[in-house]
């Protein structure tokens, strides 16, 4: 199995696409498979945010695309949390699933056109393998998390990925800097 972080991320993308297809075609599997989709995507996102995006941003020159990808992760988190609240046999489920599929498919397409090729060309094989190990370890640790579960440190990393200067700010200063950038 490849340890290249770009290959590992793309494998996850293909896995998620196959889960989407199953959820859309086979309503009877929704009750069991929706939690799998939700936790897989949440763990994948947290691992990318903590291990991959900082390297893509600082070492591969992908700052603008990383900021946009981070924004899309947060949208996907919200939609996945809403999907997990839907009755898999109810009327709302189908509509919410479509929103999740559209948002995640768009994100995957963009990431595979921008951030991932940038990492492939901007980082050497050894560094991508090192990031692959870190990505797998982090993803393993986050399996079981809900999309909107996050620690303060993870939230600060999400902000840093979008170029918000959070540094080691305490609670009040952190609130101020987030409010300031939210108003831009």
């Amino acid at each position, binding site marked *: 199995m490849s340890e290249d972080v770009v290959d590992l991320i793309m494998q996850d993308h293909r896995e998620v696409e196959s889960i989407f297809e199953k959820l859309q075609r086979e309503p009877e599997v929704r009750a069991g498979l929706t939690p799998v989709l939700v936790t897989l995507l949440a763990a994948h996102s947290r691992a990318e945010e903590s291990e991959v995006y900082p390297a893509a941003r600082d070492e591969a020159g992908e700052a603008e695309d990383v900021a*946009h990808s981070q924004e899309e992760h947060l949208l996907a988190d919200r939609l996945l949390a809403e999907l997990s609240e839907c009755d898999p046999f109810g009327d709302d489920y189908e509509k919410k699933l479509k929103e999740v599929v559209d948002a995640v498919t768009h994100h995957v397409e963009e990431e595979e056109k921008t951030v991932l090729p940038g990492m492939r060309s901007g980082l050497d094989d050894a560094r991508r393998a090192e990031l692959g190990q870190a990505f797998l370890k982090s993803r393993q640790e986050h399996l079981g998390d809900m999309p909107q579960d996050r620690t303060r440190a993870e939230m600060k990393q999400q902000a840093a990925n*979008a170029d918000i200067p959070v540094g080691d700010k305490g609670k009040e200063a952190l609130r101020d800097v987030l409010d300031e950038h939210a108003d831009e």
Partner: protein
Amino acid sequence: MYTVRGIDEWWLVARSSVAKHCASALAAVDEKEDAQEKRASDSDDVDRGGWWGRLPAC
């Protein structure tokens, strides 16, 4: 390709959106982690004898 202005706008929108999400989540994160810290601190207190150690001997 993006124009320079396009990149600036793209980045600003992303940054502002992430800041909004994080700001709205901050209160919940603070509440959860403050409660965890308090529980850990109370537990340390008990381990060191804390209130338990101050009970009058029977």
